[in-house]
């Protein structure tokens, strides 16, 4: 039951696959890169909004029906296929989840319709060092009577250069590394004291370092419980990891298909290179890894929607497996293409560059392997 899509989800998947194929092929990312857009793309955002992709996990009425994370996962997998730069993971998944899981009724009423309509984009401002470590938060939020004053710096915020709102993880109590003492805040990017330093990244999607310098946030900007923000943050990060795993699965599939096509067309020694056993076995192993990762991603997506199964464990499983997969497949894609794979004009390099970013965000394979072991008690 959990591994088979509903008819609606199947239709959504088909729509998403057709959309990225027709409107967001890899050449689209290449064109954005070449004109220096750094992943910004107002026209695509408009089309995604028209398709309703921003509201896939948001019901029309509170408690109503929606496509679930399984549905959103199909879209993310599709965008991964063509490396499309979209605000979906940050806005449709992370912000929608955080506000649904932690936001007050008023906050939900204000923001969920805007998210669903694609009117507002968000970015999660969390990491402060070069490695994912969600409790290592030093950014300070000090109570000032009417609200809070934020001071600190967030590094490599995905989508941070193109977000209208930030979800900022800050410390209201304790020391860096403590689980207790974290609080989430909604902060408009235009707020006085917020500085966005745009970053040109290897994957051409862009990101930003964001500095908060005496930034004032009212009580109505607090998202979820004060000091216990980790209770909201952790399930949100699990979902983000699962969503990213779905995207990585899509990238892996596409890079693999591209490789397979090359193996079936390139000749050396008068033979198709795909007829050499050293190539065949590596291709077969990659296919095996893709099928196994697909099972992990599907199980993790379904576990979030059904509330059954251990979401944390499955999230780590899916992110680690998908991270290893996309790393393997994108590198083999370059190697099996030979010299052409090293050129900028060919696509394998784009997959390899994006893979590194996908791997790093929301926990690397080794971070999740460590967590998986901890969750299993060893």
């Amino acid at each position, binding site marked *: 039951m959990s591994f088979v899509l509903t008819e609606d989800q199947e239709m959504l998947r088909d729509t998403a696959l057709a959309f990225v194929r027709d409107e967001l092929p890899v050449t689209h990312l290449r064109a954005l890169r070449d004109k220096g857009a750094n992943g910004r793309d107002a026209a695509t955002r408009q089309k995604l909004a028209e398709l309703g992709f921003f509201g896939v996990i948001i019901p029309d009425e509170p408690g109503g029906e929606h496509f679930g994370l399984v549905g959103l996962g199909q879209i993310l997998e599709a965008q991964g296929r063509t490396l499309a730069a979209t605000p979906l993971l940050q806005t449709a998944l992370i912000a929608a989840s955080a506000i649904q899981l932690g936001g007050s009724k008023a906050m939900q009423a204000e923001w969920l319709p805007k998210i669903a309509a694609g009117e507002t984009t968000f970015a999660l401002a969390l990491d402060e060092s070069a490695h994912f470590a969600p409790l290592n938060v030093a950014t300070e939020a000090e109570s000032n009577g009417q609200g809070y004053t934020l001071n600190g710096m967030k590094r490599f915020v995905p989508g941070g250069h193109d977000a209208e709102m930030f979800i900022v993880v800050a410390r209201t109590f304790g020391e860096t590394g403590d689980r207790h003492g974290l609080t989430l805040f909604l902060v408009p990017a235009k707020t006085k004291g917020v500085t966005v330093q745009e970053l040109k990244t290897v994957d051409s999607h862009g990101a930003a370092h964001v500095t908060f310098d005496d930034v004032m946030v009212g009580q109505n900007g607090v998202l979820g419980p004060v000091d216990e923000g980790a209770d909201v943050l952790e399930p949100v990060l699990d979902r983000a990891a699962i969503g990213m795993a779905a995207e990585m699965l899509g990238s892996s599939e596409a890079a693999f298909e591209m490789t397979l096509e090359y193996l079936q067309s390139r000749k050396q020694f008068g033979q198709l290179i795909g007829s050499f056993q050293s190539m065949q076995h590596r291709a077969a192993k990659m296919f095996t890894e893709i099928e196994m990762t697909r*099972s992990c991603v599907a199980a993790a997506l379904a576990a979030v929607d059904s509330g059954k199964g251990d979401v944390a464990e499955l999230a780590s499983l899916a992110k680690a497996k998908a991270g290893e997969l996309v790393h393997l497949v994108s590198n083999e894609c370059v190697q099996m293409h030979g010299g052409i794979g090293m050129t900028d004009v060919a696509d394998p390099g784009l997959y390899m560059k994006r893979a590194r970013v996908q791997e790093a965000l929301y926990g690397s394979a080794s971070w999740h392997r460590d967590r998986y072991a901890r969750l299993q008690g060893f």
Partner: protein
Amino acid sequence: MAYDVTEDLEAFRTETRDWLEANCPPSMRTPMADDEIVWGGKRGEFKNPDSKVWLDRMGERGWTAPEWPAAYGGGGLTKEQNRVLQEELRRIKARPALFSFGLWMFGPALLEFGNEEQKKRFLPDIVKGKTRWCQGYSEPGAGSDLAGLQTRCEDKGDHYLINGQKVWTSYADQADWIFCLVRTDTSSKHEGISFILFDMESPGVEARPILLVSGSSPFCETFFTDVKVPKDQLVGRVNGGWEIAKRLLQFERSSISAGGFGGTGGSGILGPEEYAKIHVGTDSEGRIADGDLRGRIADHKMYAKAFNLTVQRQTEQAKAGQQVGHTASILKYGAAKMNQDRHELLIEALGTEGLGWEGEGFDEGAMKATRGWLRSKGNSIEGGTSEINLNVVAKRVLGLKDHQ
């Protein structure tokens, strides 16, 4: 209509639950020790008498082969009913009543390729566990290149005459009958093979167990010298055996991957993480003190989880009528890797405790792990080597071509 089906299914569940409650002996609802596995056959032994009661009752009802037609002794259940039956069996933790190559490999192939008389003759005794079958496939000169087999089968008018040798015949020394690939035409490799059945008590049949590195002897060398076989025991058409052989290999690989070589556990053996905690020790936070070993154990456990989810996914997709393709080969490959990795980690975590062979001074579970480690080396060889399985995936699934 759909409503009625659901209602019928619930009635079936109630009926099944009642029957199992009344008929599954309590000791058959406990974890099974390896030496209590029931393989049936004329020489079958029942260390626990309840296991005979359980086999007889399940066999009588056809529930050892739930989806085979009742006309051949099977349960005659639909897929949905069988799902309910399996759920109910799991619910009471019932042991499998019968382990059988007849059930897993030969029966499904005979249902597809056998004639009516053959199905009526052979299938009911498989269901009841009365006949134990073995598989005459590999030969000394035909391993991965199975179609190179040379065991001769000559048409002598009123019977066939078989001469040759098989090897790696699982449990040939304990089997009653053999399903066997033989050469009926030497002028064509694949089109000269036939699929034939005969009694292991026929004059001229000899099975010699092979001692493995693990100290066990699950396989035999099997010799055929002027073995006479009645003509109605050839399945399908003469020289048409290769198609049957390949189909049967799919059943074999599926049954191996469904069990995963037992790669996620085994009775009396702890997991690698448990042995590592005991013998390597833990840090102040309860983590295995050797970080490198810990990482590799976690990696293996994630692989095992991914493998199990994949088996589950394919089962569900098959039930929903979706195409799952040639997945038996990727799962066979994965199952072998998983079980071998697990045993390597067990032995590494056990340290010198994992280096005992027999006698006093070593933990019994640890010695089982040691034997299992050695035995597991065959997993990437038996039932199609990992290399052959990767060939199958590359060619049949990915469509990569041979050299031209």
